[in-house]
């Protein structure tokens, strides 16, 4: 027993060290990339999007990994955040910081309404209802041409002068780190433990007096708010919002990331989403045909993970460690 506690503290220590090293490297990265001219600028853009996607994947993981709720409509909140920023900045002339602050709020409101219905269902029915609501929002954004621009989306969102590619990267990185730490706190709080209890055994959670639906609902709202923030950030990065942000194929992206990275940890989805996007960009840079081939490759990767490594990369890592220790 004693050796185990020593082990875990050492583990925690190395985790912190690794985290700090990675963080410092991420802060230095854009300045190095900026020296490489146009390709460097391209990669700054790519890494910024990676950070945003990682935030999106993290947000889903609150309900998927920790809550055990399979949502196929998480893009709805990503999209609501995206359109909040786009509409506020383009049509109301609101400054960026206010627009970015509103994105998680509108997304949280959407999540509160949709989640109120969804948490009443479990398992597959929950998944299908989230899908239905997500697609409902998608269709509304698609059809309501005068408000959302339909499938043209909203283009030409203003960007403040001082936010060049490097500065925007840094902004996203800081927001991401803040969100990561907040989510870490949530996951390790008593609330987070209750959520995990519900995932492991809903009946028992009810039995020990946890208001299961209320907890799931709150968790759903928190996850939606973070997704909305990610959507807002991506809108400002691309300077447009489009209906694709709400589509169910967008909802699938963070699920893939969580699956590939590993679901029951905070870093898993981050690693998964970054790795998948890196692979996609590198393959597409290597050869043009890869743009069309990517979906097939992604499908094959998923098949392999589902069949042979359902724990994802983090699972493989732990298994390897377990083997070396024994």
């Amino acid at each position, binding site marked *: 027993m004693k050796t185990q506690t020593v082990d875990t503290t050492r583990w925690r220590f190395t985790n912190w060290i690794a985290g700090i090293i990675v963080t410092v490297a991420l802060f230095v990265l854009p300045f190095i990339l900026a020296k490489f001219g146009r390709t460097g600028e391209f990669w700054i853009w790519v890494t910024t999007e990676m950070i945003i996607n990682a935030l999106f994947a993290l947000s889903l993981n609150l309900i998927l990994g920790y809550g055990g709720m399979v949502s196929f409509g998480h893009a709805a909140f990503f999209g609501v955040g995206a359109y909040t920023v786009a509409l506020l900045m383009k049509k109301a002339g609101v400054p960026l910081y206010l627009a970015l602050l509103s994105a998680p709020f509108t997304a949280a409101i959407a999540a509160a309404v949709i989640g109120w219905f969804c948490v009443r269902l479990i398992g597959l029915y929950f*998944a299908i209802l989230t899908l239905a609501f997500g697609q409902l929002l998608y269709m509304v954004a698609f059809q309501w041409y005068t408000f959302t621009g339909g499938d043209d989306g909203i283009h030409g969102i203003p960007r403040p002068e001082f936010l060049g590619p490097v500065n925007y990267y840094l902004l996203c990185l800081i927001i991401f780190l803040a969100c990561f730490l907040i989510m870490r706190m949530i996951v390790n709080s008593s609330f987070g433990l209750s959520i995990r209890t519900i995932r492991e055994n809903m009946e028992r959670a009810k039995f020990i007096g946890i208001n299961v639906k209320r907890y799931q609902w709150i968790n759903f709202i928190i996850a939606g708010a973070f997704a909305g923030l990610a959507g807002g950030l991506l809108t400002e990065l691309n300077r447009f919002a489009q209906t694709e942000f709400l589509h169910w194929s967008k909802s699938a992206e963070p*699920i893939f990331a969580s699956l590939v990275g590993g679901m029951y940890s905070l870093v898993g989805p981050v690693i998964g989403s970054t790795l998948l996007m890196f692979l996609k960009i590198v393959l597409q840079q290597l050869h043009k045909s890869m743009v069309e081939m990517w979906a097939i490759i992604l499908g094959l990767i998923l*098949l392999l993970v589902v069949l042979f490594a359902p724990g994802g990369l983090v699972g493989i890592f732990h298994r390897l460690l377990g083997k070396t220790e024994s």
Partner: protein
Amino acid sequence: MSAEYYLFMLINGLSQGMLLFIVASGLSLVFGVLRVINFAHGSIYMIGAFVAYSLSTLLTGTSLASFLLLLLVVPPAIALLGFVLEVSLFRRVYREEHLLQLLLTYALVLILDNVVRMIWGGDPRNVARPEILAGSVDLMGMALPTYNVFILLVGPVIALGLWLLLYRTRAGNVIRAAVSYPDILGALGVNVSWVMTATFMLGCWLAGLGGVLVAALANVDLSIGMEKIIECFAVVVIGGLGSVGGALLGSLIIGVGITFFQLPFGRWALVFPYFVMALVLIIRPWGLFGRPER
């Protein structure tokens, strides 16, 4: 609007619904027995449509015989594809959690859809209707396409066939037993995993049949799989997952609903399936014909 016009719309909506039923009943059957929601069902249906197109280019003429040949050959070929998929992939995840099953079928969507894109490209295609079905029927002064009437007739035939199969044959008894009590069925000496394979093949056969029928109804392109699978979800949710009778009712509601809502709402009518799906899930999650799981 006159009453004839509404009748015309109703018949159009019903024929849309019947086509939807043929595809959705396959999804529902597969869910009932395998307990897996197959996202790839729409892609399999799409493959059916494109295979029918390719085969029709090989056959000369637009005779009824060559169309019947398509109807006879393509669905079994798609069922064979289903056999390969079930034995090599689906069978491995029955005991896994829902998420992994869903992701497996979603991975299949990504692969199959893009294989179709590579083979057939993105251009819209269709199968020429046989001459006897190409014209139109006169219905109180309105020209109703004969082919729509044909689909309207095929749907009930399939529904009746499925009902006879499920409730009047030993194979049907086994399938229904596999839905309700798979463990006991296994204990009675039935090889449940082959029942599952056979059911999956039947589901794919239905998807393939829907594919052939739609290829002669309208232009088909790469988007029809995704479109149809969402409609199918709506149908099986409304009717109750696993219930074929429910799938029939759900299909008719969706088919007629979309057609009628197009009058006042235009393209907003496409919101209708999602709306009904959400509504049913909220009020009666197990569907109109289904039973609560516990």
